[in-house]
C-alpha cells in the first residue's frame, strides 16, 4: 500500500501503450535520420565532422530535438498517461482503491518522468550506436578514433531535462483536467509554436515562457560554460514546482472524482 506499489502499478499500465512506443520511436527518429544523412552524404559531412566529431554530432542532435520534437513529445506523454484512465473509464476504480490522492497523482507524474528519462537515455544510446554503425560501414568518419566528452554530454542532458520540467508540470495538470485528449495537446501545441515564434523575434520576456525554455537552453549551451543554471532554467524549475502543486491540489479538492 505504499508509494512503490502505486508506482509499480502505474508502470505496468504503460505496457504496450502508445506512450511507451512513442518514447522508443521518438528517441530513435533523429539518430536514424542522422545515420541516413551521414551514409548518403558522406563526402561532405565527414569533412565537417573531422574535428571533435562527437561534440558536433551531439550538438546537432540535440539542436534538432530540443526546439520542437522534444517539447512535442513531452506534451504527448503528459496527455497519454492520464488518457489511459480516461479511455478505459478507470478513474473511479482508481479513486476507490486504497490509495491517497497524493499517491495517485505523484505515482502518475513520476511515471511520466520515468518515461521521459527512458527516452533521454535511449536517445543518447541511439546517437552513439548509429554513429558507430555509420563509421563501421564508412571509414571516412572518425567516431571510432575519438572519445566522447561524457561530462559535457551529461551536462547537455541535465540542462535540457531541467528546461522541460515546467512544460511537463503544466501539461500534466491540463491533461488531468480535460477528458478530451485534443484539449491539452492543442493548448500545448499553440503555446509551443507561439514560443518558437517569440524566440525567433528575440522578444525580451521570452525567458518567462516555459515552452521556450528548451530552445533557450540550447542557445545558451553554445557557450559551453560550466554547469550554471540560466535564468530561464530557474524559471522552469519554478513553474515545475508551482504547477505540480496546483495540479495536485486541483485533483485533491475536486468535488466529483472520476
Amino acid at each position, binding site marked *: 500500500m505504499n508509494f512503490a506499489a502505486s508506482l509499480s502499478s502505474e508502470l*505496468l499500465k504503460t*505496457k504496450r501503450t502508445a506512450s511507451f512506443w512513442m518514447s522508443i520511436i521518438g528517441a530513435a527518429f533523429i539518430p536514424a535520420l542522422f545515420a541516413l544523412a551521414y551514409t548518403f552524404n558522406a563526402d561532405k559531412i565527414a569533412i565537417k565532422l573531422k574535428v571533435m566529431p562527437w561534440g558536433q554530432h551531439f550538438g546537432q542532435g540535440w539542436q534538432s530535438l530540443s526546439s520542437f520534437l522534444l517539447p512535442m513529445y513531452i506534451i504527448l506523454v503528459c496527455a497519454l498517461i492520464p488518457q489511459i484512465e480516461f479511455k*478505459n473509464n*478507470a*478513474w473511479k*476504480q482508481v479513486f476507490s482503491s*486504497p490509495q491517497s490522492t497524493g499517491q495517485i497523482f505523484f505515482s502518475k507524474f513520476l511515471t511520466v518522468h520515468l518515461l521521459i528519462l527512458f527516452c533521454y537515455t535511449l536517445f543518447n544510446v541511439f546517437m552513439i550506436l548509429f554513429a558507430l554503425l555509420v563509421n563501421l560501414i564508412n571509414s571516412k568518419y572518425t567516431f571510432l578514433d575519438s572519445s566522447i566528452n561524457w561530462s559535457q554530454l551529461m551536462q547537455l542532458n541535465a540542462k535540457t531535462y531541467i528546461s522541460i520540467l515546467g512544460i511537463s508540470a503544466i501539461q500534466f495538470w491540463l491533461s488531468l483536467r480535460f477528458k478530451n485528449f485534443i484539449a491539452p495537446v492543442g493548448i500545448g501545441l499553440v503555446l509551443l509554436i507561439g514560443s518558437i515564434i517569440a524566440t525567433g523575434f528575440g522578444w525580451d520576456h521570452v525567458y518567462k515562457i516555459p515552452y521556450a525554455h528548451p530552445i533557450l537552453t540550447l542557445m545558451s549551451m553554445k557557450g559551453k560554460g560550466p554547469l550554471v543554471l540560466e535564468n530561464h532554467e530557474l524559471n522552469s524549475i519554478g513553474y515545475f514546482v508551482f504547477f505540480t502543486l496546483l495540479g495536485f491540489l486541483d485533483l485533491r479538492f475536486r*468535488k*466529483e472524482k472520476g
Partner: protein
Amino acid sequence: MGLLKNQQGAIRLFDKDIAKHRIEILKNVGSLIEQPSLYAHLTAKENLEVYRKIYGSPKSRIDEVLKLVDLAGTGSKKAKQFSLGMKQRLSIAVALLHKPELLILDEPTNGLDPNGIIETRELIKRLNKEEGVTIIVSSHILAEIERMASHVGIIHKGKLLFQGPLSELQQLKNKQSFVQVDTSDNDAAVRLLAEHGAEQKNGLIQFPFQHREGVAAIAQILIANNLAVYLLQPQQNDLEQLFLHITSGTI
C-alpha cells in the same frame, strides 16, 4: 467511496467514519462502478496485477479469482477482445482480489445478454454463500433483484422509501393484491362477502387477496348461494407495480 464529496451527515462502515479512515475502509471493500473499468491493452492477468500490487495481495490470488469468475483460460487475450460478460466478470474478479468483506456492485447485469445475466447472478449468489461476502447491488431491473437479494432498499428522488428484508416487501405486495369477482347478482354477492372485505368497484366486486385457499372458499360461498360466477381472478401486484405504488406515494 469518497468519489463524491459528502454534503451532509456522516458515513460509517465497519464501525468507522469514512471521512477519517477512508483508506483503511477501502481495503475491505471491493467495487464495480458503472461499466467495467479495465485496461483494454492489458490481458486479464495484467489487469489483475495492476490492482494486486496496490492491495498487496499474494500472487496466487490472481489465479484463484480468475478461476472463481471462470476466466482462467484467456491467456494472452487482451481485455478489449473480451465480450461484455467476460469484462464484467473480470471486473468482479478485480473487486474480489483482496478478499473484501463488502462488495459493491453498481448495475452488474447492465447491458449483458441473458446468458451473461444468469452467469453474473449465479456468481453473486455463489460469492455470498461460499465466500461469505456481503454484497450491495444497485439495479433498476426489479425482477433481477427479486431473484438475488435478501434485503431491499428503494431509493427515489434521493429519498430512501423502503428498507427491509425482501419478505417484508413481499408482504407489502400481498397487501396490495386483490381478487376481482363478477357474478349474476353483484349486489347480493357484496352482502354475502362483506366479512371478507368485499366492495363494489367499477361494476365488479373486489376483495383483498390473502391466499389461494381463500379464493376457493369464496367461490364455494357464491355457488352455494346460487350465484353464477363469471369471473374470479386474483390480481397480484408484481414488484414493478409495487415500485410504482411506493414511488408515487400511494402506499
